[in-house]
């Protein structure tokens, strides 16, 4: 019985490795192909349902990159998708399947709000106090996200509990438990809706470059820094080498001196830290307080798709996150400006993900059309 988890890993590893095998160019081709094919099918459905597909396509573009507001909106979503996507990529790259990013994101964001709200009275008002609070809040999120991810890591490493299942369960638990806290102990008695107290006004990123209350260049910069740091850790440090090697071939990693169990825990922790940071950005830059987490978007789940679209490469997560951010943003636009039921966008995202999973399909298409004589 003992090898169950290991075997699951091997199976999934192989699937993941298959994605990694593809060359960079091929990956990009597949990503573009998947997206194009999914959009094409989406347009056919739009037409079949009696709407104007050209109009719809136009709104997709306008809604994502057509105006300053649209771009800001796209970047706002993308920031979260990229952070959550990087978090997923870290774990998947190391062969640990962290499906719990959503939960870590929530726990992180909640930790930010709680720590800031409770410490605010003890710190001076004004910018300095605000910055201090934000730093503390962000650290709290990173710690909380890391710990919440470390738990399934420990359970997997030392208890043999399949992390795919435990992290899914921990998502439910995070939503339920944080929701309980928000509705009860940490709820704002003054507020009529279910939410915590608002963080002080001094907590918030400055609005420079983008004239959007929920997007700040600071958030984008933090995201970029995270991407660069994670990419550098993966490719330029011993820890990253240990991690990625564990993902490719656990036995070789062990041979080279990696403590597999500790690696699982550190990978999960690292992944959760980034997810928690995403939660902090969400809380500080966008929300300003914390609500019932069941109403927070599925960033952690979509991030799995983002990461896989990017072949679990932290740098690739950026364009993939932009794509998802753009789709999400145009869905917002389409709501305001068209009659097409917005669920269609969710469906199209599903199609993108589906096609991303099937590189073979595109290789076949490439072969059939003679666009690239790719041999397997």
């Amino acid at each position, binding site marked *: 019985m003992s090898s169950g988890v290991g075997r699951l890993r091997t199976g999934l590893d192989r*699937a993941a490795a298959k994605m990694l095998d593809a060359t960079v160019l091929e990956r990009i081709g597949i990503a573009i192909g998947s997206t194009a094919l999914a959009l094409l099918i989406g347009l056919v459905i739009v037409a079949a349902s009696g709407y104007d597909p050209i109009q719809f396509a136009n709104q997709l573009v306008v809604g994502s990159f057509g105006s300053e507001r649209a771009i800001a909106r796209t970047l706002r979503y993308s920031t979260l998708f990229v952070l959550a996507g990087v978090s997923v990529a870290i774990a998947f790259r190391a062969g640990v399947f962290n499906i719990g990013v959503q939960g870590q994101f929530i726990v992180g964001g909640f930790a930010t709000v709680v720590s800031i709200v409770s410490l605010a009275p003890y710190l001076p008002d004004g910018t300095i106090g605000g910055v201090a609070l934000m730093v503390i809040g962000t650290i709290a999120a990173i710690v909380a996200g890391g710990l919440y991810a470390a738990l399934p890591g420990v359970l997997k490493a030392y208890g043999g509990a399949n992390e795919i299942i435990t992290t899914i369960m921990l998502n439910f638990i995070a939503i339920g438990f944080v929701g309980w806290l928000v509705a009860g102990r940490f709820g704002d008695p003054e507020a009529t809706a279910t939410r915590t107290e608002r963080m002080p006004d001094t907590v918030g990123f400055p609005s420079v470059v983008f004239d959007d209350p929920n997007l700040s260049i600071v958030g984008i910069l933090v995201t970029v820094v995270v991407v660069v740091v994670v990419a550098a850790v993966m490719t330029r440090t011993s820890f990253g080498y240990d991690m990625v090697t564990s993902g490719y071939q656990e036995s070789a990693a062990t041979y080279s001196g990696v403590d597999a169990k500790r690696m699982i825990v550190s990978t999960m922790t690292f992944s959760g830290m980034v997810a928690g940071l995403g939660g902090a950005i969400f809380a500080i830059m966008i929300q300003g307080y914390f609500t019932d987490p069941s109403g927070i978007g599925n960033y952690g789940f979509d991030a799995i798709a983002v990461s896989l679209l990017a072949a679990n490469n932290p740098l690739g997560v950026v364009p993939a996150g932009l794509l998802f951010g753009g789709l999400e943003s145009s869905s917002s636009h389409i709501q305001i400006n068209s009659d097409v039921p917005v669920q269609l966008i969710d469906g199209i995202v599903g199609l993108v993900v589906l096609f991303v*999973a099937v590189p073979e399909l595109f290789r076949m298409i490439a072969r059939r059309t003679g666009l690239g004589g790719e041999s397997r």
Partner: protein
Amino acid sequence: MSVADYAQRERVQLAGATVVALLIAAAVFTFVFDIALERLLTVGFLTRSLEMATPIALAAIGGLYAEKSGVFNIGLEGFMIFGAFSAAATMYLLGGTSPSQLDVWLAIAIAVLISAILTVFFAVLLIHFKADQIVAGLAVWFLGLGFAPFTAAIIWGSRSSPGLESINSLAFGQSPLVVLTVIVVLASWVFLYRTKYGYWIQAAGENPEALDTAGVDVNRVRYATVIFSGAMAGLGGAVLLAHAGNFVGTGETMVDGRGWIGIVAYLFGNYNPIGAAAAALLFGGLDMLNVQFQTVGIEVSARLVNLLPYAAVIVVLTAWGKTRMPSSVGEPYESED
């Protein structure tokens, strides 16, 4: 006794211990809160637990077959959504807002058929095109969340259907679909462990080469199980709908995570159809016990009690973590010929 048998026995003991613990907890509660036990453990409680477990068990059986044969169908949730929606749409097309019982049964059958047809595409992507099973399965969920409400909006002008019809109960208030599920569970156990096709399914997941060299087409077996898994998830969704009587497509839809719990159920049940059904019943029972607590006024936060099954899964996986997963899950099989 083999390791697997031993663990199996531990699992049975564990399930027994859980039930006993729950009963003791219930007894303590009744004492502390001065509530009569018979108010808590009613026939209705049993009926509802069974009904709650039914869709989960069906999806779990489907997922279990697919995984036994080496294909991880993580898209159960999505197929359940499609199943529930197809059943509602069929019922509506057959009988408008007041379909007959025959329409209900027909709708269930057609929902299974539609889910099976959708799964054929999925199976081709997984098996022929060697799609990444995790990602493709996740995509099915997204597709279900998107296209089922979308189509509902086209048909009804709303993501939720108007009230349709739910299935009539048999004697003692039991749903015929619960009976159907019990039959499916038993039949799938017999099929898996007592027929040659069951042998092939097990071999396809454990050692596909062995099956191939025994002259059986591995991928054909896998196509069959994957399509079956979609059909069963679809049946689960249709059963859910037939119990509820209308389709709700808002939020996470009426399926609301049951497909995921289905996966957990068969892992919990260690890939044994009866074990999976028992796990589904355990989850259903826990959920309904929570409802009973609320009804009789035992003051526990519903939100927290709702988390019990999830916590239980984590504890059990950690303490008895070793689920025997078929060796070749997730690997596409390519016959050498």
